[in-house]
Structures are given as C-alpha cells and as structure tokens.
C-alpha cells in the first residue's frame, strides 16, 4: 500500500496563510475526517476543520483534486490555513494521527510526480531549480524548464529522429529481400539538417550553473594596485583586509553578491609578482592564476598592456593616480561611489551578454553533455554507410531520451535521485 503523505507546502509560519498538502490514496478520507464533507473536485470551499474530539482546528479554504490528473498523479488535498504556528502544528498533528498518513520526506511530492509520470526528468530538474532559485533570473530559467518547454522540443526531435531511424532500419532489414522499401530515395543528411540546427541553437543557452553559482568576476593585477579596496567597494562591506603593505592579500578571497537579480562571485586575488620570498604569497599567486583561467570576467588593475585577453582594464585609485584614459576602460575611486556604480553597470552589461537569452531556459551540465553527444552523432551521419548512420541515430536517440529520463538505467536514476532525496 502506498503511504499518504502530507507537508506544509508554503513558507515557514507565521504567515498570512499556510498551505498544507496531502497526497496519496487516503487523501480524500483524510480530508473528510477533518472537514466533514469535501467541496466538489477542483472547487475551493470554506470548511471548519475539526480534530477527532470535535474540537475546531481552523477555518480553512479546502480543495480536493482527484488523481491521476493532479500535480503528484495521486489524490491531492490542499488546506489553506491561517498561517499561525499553532494552527499549522495542530492540523499536522491531526493528520499524523490518521492511519496510513505520514509526514512527507524532503522532495517526496516531486518524486511522486516523477514516478507517476506527471513530470519528466528535465521538468523535475527545472522544478528543483525553481525551488532552489534565489534570484529572478534563476527563477525565470527554472520556470521555463519546469513548464516543459525543453521537454516538448526534445520529444519533437525524438519523434523526427525515430522516423528517420525507421526508414534506415527498413532499408537495412528489408531493402534486399523485399520490394517494399526500394526506390524510397533515402537521403539522410538533408532530412536531419533542421534538427541539427535546432539542437545547435539550444546549445547556445546559458549554463544553469552560472545562473546558480553566479558570474565569476576576478580582480587581478600587481601587488598594491588597490584590488582589495575595490573588492570591498564593490561588495559594499569590508570583506578583505586593506593595508598599504604590498602583498597583504596572500590567498584568494571570494564573496557572493546579487545585483539586479543576477548572482555574482567576486574573487580577490594575491598581487601578481615574480619577486617574492614568501612561500605563502607564492602559493597565493599560483592560485590567483588558476582563478584567472576560470573567470567569466577579469577586472585588471595593472598595466593595460599586461592585461589578459578580454579583461576589463580598470584604473584604480583614480583620486590618487593619473590614468591614461585612452588605454583603460574605466577609472574608479573607492571614495567616489558614482565610479563604483558605473563599474557595476559595466559588469552587469558584460554579464548579460555572457548569459545571453534566457527565454528558452538554461541548460544543466547534464543536458549540455547529452545534447552535445546527440548533436555530434547526428553531424556524423553522412549517408555513405547506412549501418554507421543507423548507429549514429541510435546514439543520438539514446542521448536525447536520457535528457528526459526515458533511459531508465541505474546510472541515470542515481544521478537523479542523488539530488532529489536531499533536495526540497
């Protein structure tokens, strides 16, 4: 017998209202036990909730959704309670006392939706992202995926590729002993070209990881260039120790900040120098170089002609030093907030370019690698050797199916539930 589960599905009380959801075969009975009668399916009704002794628990807006066309695929009850701690606790206690009901484990509603086929893997991943989203951009990207936009596109590709594969297989298995497939004029590359184009376009979507972890902005340059002062100014708080002594910052310092709905990871590094006897500073310099390699955007505070490629050349300490404005991009002074705000504007603009169009959603590393695998398999289809073309089509189909979680192998399941059991 499947357990019926319940959980507070809205934020932590106290709040104006609190929504408790009950999902499973006993959801209807649980609702009737509390509310007497339930309103007609999918219609909200005000009900007095009572405990077993007839004591009133709360007046609640009550909704019942019969399965399987529900979010979890099971019978689903929603109780919109007054959002006080005591109210929620009392209703939860009344539910827990019923036979066959128990508190949901983290992620269990989503898991049931997935198991009952209400969500595919890509949608579930989107939903997990959505629950974890802290910024508006993360939310938009997650929502696009949870709503199934990507799933629909991939399902469409799978249908089209299956048609192509069926024709190839017919040619391989019947072409020589039957007349049925002769003269079909199978020309694969043009048949696949539109799908290839669409797949390549999807691959240009921004990686979810960048939205989640933030755009990595690394401050770099020689010792005593003012990196840590600028780091603090950008953060708006004194996160790094600032002195006049060259080589004060000897390790990598990192801090997260959200600006205009977009997360950033600001990284302060040790000043780059070839002349240090300090072994700790030397290690710091090695680490600084590694950060430069991983950076999405470098703020360079050294000589403009020594700047790494694509770095934003900053003239720091603009109130003390003269900068040649022809060779640098932006002059800052930590004493001039306008110059800091202007720098943020530049960073933000560069980051938007980096992140690109979010309307289609973002791509997980898992999606990206499977999609790339499918794409390169399809690109290898050349129409010369039908047998190898069939193999490439099979690889592409398998990779795309894996994005949706249709290849139910342990490897996929492991990756999937590794996240959900621990997640929301």
């Amino acid at each position, binding site marked *: *017998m*499947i*357990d019926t589960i319940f959980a507070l599905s809205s934020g932590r009380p106290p709040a104006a209202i609190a929504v408790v959801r009950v999902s499973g075969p006993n959801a209807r009975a649980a609702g009737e036990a509390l509310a007497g009668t339930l309103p007609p399916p999918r219609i909200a009704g005000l009900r007095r909730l009572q405990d077993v002794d007839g004591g009133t628990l709360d007046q609640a807006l009550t909704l019942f959704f019969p399965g399987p066309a529900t979010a979890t695929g099971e019978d689903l009850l929603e109780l919109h309670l007054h959002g006080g701690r005591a109210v929620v606790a009392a209703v939860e206690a009344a539910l827990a006392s019923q036979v066959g009901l128990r508190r949901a484990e983290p992620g269990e509603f989503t898991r*049931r939706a*997935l*198991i*009952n*086929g209400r969500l595919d893997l890509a949608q579930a991943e989107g939903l997990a992202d959505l629950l974890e989203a802290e910024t508006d951009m993360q939310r938009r990207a997650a929502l696009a995926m949870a709503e199934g936009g990507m799933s629909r596109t991939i399902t469409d590709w799978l249908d089209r590729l299956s048609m192509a594969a069926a024709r190839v*297989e017919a040619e*391989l*298995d*019947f*072409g*020589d*002993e*039957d*007349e049925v497939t002769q003269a079909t004029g199978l020309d694969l590359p043009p048949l696949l070209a539109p799908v290839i184009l669409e797949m390549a376009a999807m691959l240009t979507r921004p990686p979810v990881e960048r939205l989640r972890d933030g755009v990595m902005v690394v401050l770099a340059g020689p010792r005593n260039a003012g990196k840590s002062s600028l780091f603090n100014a950008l953060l708006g708080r004194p996160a790094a120790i600032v002195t006049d002594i060259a080589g004060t910052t000897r390790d990598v310092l990192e801090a997260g900040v959200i600006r205009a709905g977009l997360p950033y990871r600001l990284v302060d590094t040790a000043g780059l120098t070839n002349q240090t006897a300090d072994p700790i500073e030397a290690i710091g310099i090695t680490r600084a170089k590694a950060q430069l390699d991983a950076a999405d955007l470098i703020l360079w505070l050294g000589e403009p002609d020594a700047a790494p490629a694509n770095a934003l050349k900053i003239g720091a300490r603009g109130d003390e030093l003269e900068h040649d404005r022809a060779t640098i991009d932006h002059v800052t002074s930590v004493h001039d907030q306008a110059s800091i705000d202007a720098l943020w504007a530049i960073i933000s603009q560069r980051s938007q370019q980096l992140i690109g169009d979010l309307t289609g959603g973002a791509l997980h590393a898992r999606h990206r690698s499977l999609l790339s695998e499918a794409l390169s398999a399809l690109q290898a289809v050349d129409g010369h*050797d*039908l*047998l*190898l073309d*069939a*193999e490439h089509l*099979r*690889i592409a189909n*398998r990779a795309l199916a894996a994005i949706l*979680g*249709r*290849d*139910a*192998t*342990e*490897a996929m*399941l492991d990756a*999937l*539930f590794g996240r959900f059991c621990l997640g929301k």
Partner: protein
Amino acid sequence: MKQFDVVVVGGGHAGTEAAAAAARRGASVALVSQSLAQIGTMSCNPSIGGLGKGHLVREVDALDGLMARAADDAAIHHRMLNRSKGLAVQGPRVQADRRLYRASIQHQLASYAKITLIEGEASALNLTSGSVASVALADGSIIGATAVVLATGTFLGGKIFRGLERAAGGRIDERPANRLGEQLRALRLPMGRLKTGTPPRLDGRTIDWGALEPQPSDTDEWRMSPMTRTPRLPQLACAITRTSAATHDIIRNGLTTSPLFGGDIEGGGPRYCPSIEDKVHRFGDRDGHQIFLEPEGLDDPWIYPNGISTSLSADVQDALVRSVAGLERAQIVQYGYAVEYDYIDSRALDHRLALAAIHGLFCAGQLNGTTGYEEAAAQGVIAGCNAAALARDLAPTTVDRARGYIGVMIDDLVLQGVSEPYRMLTARAEYRLALRADNAEARLSGWADTLGVLTPARQAHLRQRHAMRDAARDGVQDGVDADILREIEEDRRYAPYLERQSEEIARMRRDGDVAISSDTLSLRSVPGLSTEMIERLERASPKTLDEASRVRGVTPAAVAALWLHSRKRT
C-alpha cells in the same frame, strides 16, 4: 519404462538442435517424433538464413549445432543479402535441396550415440509434485525424463485452412498433437493462437523460365559453417516474376472464401511474411508484388513461389498462379494453406527457456511464438543445453543481448512476449555493430567450449581458427582462412564504435546486477507502481533492473520506482 536425462518432443529445427545440444553436454536423450522419416523437414520455404536469420544460423553453428552444416550439405543457391551494406548487416542465405537437407540432419543425428529416436505421438506429460517425470505416448508407452523439451512447432492444436476446407494438422497430411495441446491448456499455461501460411508449390517443368529474369547464385565461395570443407553442389538459379493487376482482381474476387477475411482464423499472422491476399488488401494501390521462384532440389521439379503465401481456395489459387508472367501454364503440385496453432506466451519462460510453472519443462521454437527455421534452431540449442544442465547439474546456458542475436531473441521473447510471430531482424539488436554474422565463431565458440557444448572435432577446429585469428591480428596472411582475414579487418574498421558500445554494455550489465523481486506481493509493496505496471511486471517476471527496463509497456517511472525500492531494501 526407459529413463532418459532429456526427452525432446518434436523433430523439427528446434527439436533436433535441442536433442543434439543436450547430447553434446553429455545427457542421454530421447527424441520423439510422429514420423522419424520427417525429422529435419523444412515445412515452408526451402531456404536457410537471410537478414538477421543468417546471424542466427552462424551462432547456432558456433555452438556446434546442426543447421549450418546441413545447409551447406544441401545448398543449391547462395546469396549474401545486403552485400552493398556493412558486414554487420549482411545476411547469408542459401536455397537448400529439401531431401539433402533432411538427410544431412538425420545423418548428423545418427552420429550422436547418446540420442535415441522414438517414433510416436507424445500424448501427455506426467508430472510428479509439479515437476516433469515422464512423457506418455499415444501407444501407451511411457518414457521417463528428468527434463523435457517441447518443440512441437505448429502441431499443438494445429488446424489447416484452405478456402472453405478445414483439416486438423500442423503440416499438410500430418496429424496435430491435440491431446498434448489440451493438457497444456488444462495446466493453465498462458496460451494463445497464431497463424502462418505457405504458398502453393509449382511443377518447375510447367514454368516458362525463358520469359523470366534469372537470379544466379553468388560466385564467391562463402559457406554457412567454417567447418564445411566439401565443395559446393551444382548451383541453380532462381527467377523473379511479379503479380499483375489481373492477379489482384482474382484475389479480391476470391476473398469470399478466404478463412483469413471470413474471420475463421483468430490467430495473429506475421506482418513480416504476409499472405498475398493480405498484401493486396493492405497495399491496394500497388500494381504488383515480387515473386521469387525458388527450386526445392536438384532432382526435384517442385518450385517454391516465395511471395504468394495463401489460404484461398484451390480454384482461386489455380487462377491466381496462371495470371502471373511465366506461370501461364504452371501446374500446382500442392496447394497453399494457412495453419493456425497454439503457442505459449513466452513471458512464462525464463532466459533458459524453462517454463517457470513446471519444473523441468523447456519450450523451444514456433511453440514460443516465433517464426522461421533459424529462430527455432537457435532456441532449440539453448533449451537443449539447459535441459541437459538441469538433468546433469551443469551451469545454465544463457546468452545476453551483447553476446549474440540468440540472446536478443530470447530476451525479447521472455520480457516482451509476442503479438505476432517473432522474426529476427538486425534492428532488434542494439549492439548490432559487434554482432556480425561473420564473427559468430569468435564471439561464441570459446564461451560455448567452457560450457562443454562443443564436440572434440569442433574443439580441434576452434583451436586452429583461434591460432589463425592471432596470426591475422599480427599481420600474417599466409595459411589464414580468407573469412578470418576479412573478420579481423572488419573488427578494426568498427573498433571505435565497438569501444563506445562496450561502455553501454558495461552499464547494461551493471543494471543486471540490481536484483528485483517480481512476485505479486513484493510488487505491491513498491510505492508508486500502478496496477497496470504490476500486472505487466508479474507476467514477464524480470529478475533484474535491466530486465525490468525492457518489459513491454513498463515505463521509466516504474523502473525508477523499482530501483528506489531495491535501494531501500539493501
């Protein structure tokens, strides 16, 4: 009462291979057939091999089976199908002289000292507390058996249809095995009905060969078995002709007497080998369908017109044959017919081809819902090996999907079941690039040797061939058989793909290590499994997560639920 380790019921392609394989594994075997003279008969088309099927023939041979050598002994026409395509989908096929083929099978069986041939109709299985104990014959005699292989083909509940005529039988002019069929039904085994058909046979002396396009035999000297060292028989050409609009009119007008369209036949027929009335009905817009005229033997005037399988009435068959170019004056020597027969839902079997419900009972061939000699023979070898294993306490013999087409077929049968007669296709094999007809020996023989399935002659042959393979890999060409040189070259060509597939295979085998229970009680305790999924899983009773993922109609979500559940238990 005579006692044997293994009793095989049926002397067709499955039964003969089962008997021989069991004997190779050291079992004492009785082979029961209604007519010993008919052992090894090709009931339908006179050809062995084809696309996918040729792979099976070579695999049966790699397990030291009879079929490939019998085909070589009888081959009067060779054709490598898909010759223009990659080696992995090339299908060797021969036309076999019927009498020579049967003679070769009987001759090979005679060389097995451990096989006793018994003529008679098996009428009942005697069980002792749920296990097979003996086979009763219609004449009252009893044969004791530790294991029984049923390979009754179309004979269980066999019923023949031609126009409005009806006859009981599995093959024309031969009795059906009705009592055994009734007993199996009484045992409440999951059974159904399937149908198949055969075309009329023509007298070759009445065909106008000069008017037809000949199809000559291949000139290169390939053989079905690498053991065959004798020269080829004289080769005959086939010929190609077509049905015409007039033929189709005759067929449409004749449908009133068709048992297929009259609803008398309830069993599902093969989409891959439809009757001509089916083709005309379903592809009405086509102006003609090809007919291959295949000789049935060197000294045999009978011709098999491949492509016009039919159960229309005799007078309609006469008219339709004569409406075809080159056949205007052709005489029919035996009319075509359809046969409907009982089959066992193969999901009741395990990968050894053992019936889970009755200990010691194995099933092979058409009885399991397959079509084709090659499919039958391949199952026969596996059922025979496992029947011997049961009787003699040896290791079971199962082939996984990555090792051979035999494995693909049995896995499909056991997990997916059939809705129409199952025919081997290369498209069914996901590891197709690795499973070539030309490397069956390299893939399977060494493994078969470890299971004790090979005769000393085969073992000696294998040692020689393995040495040649090693030499060929080192670049030596002298003294190496030509087919091995080509095999090694082809291995190299596909190497990058095979490497990639090996990862996939490893993943499949890992999933094969995740055990699940598929009895009702365990399945009901799995959260998130719908009643429909429970029923589907119960019927096929997969033992591992990998198997569950291939059960027909089982969703990935259900597999996920099974996986989660198995995780929790461990």
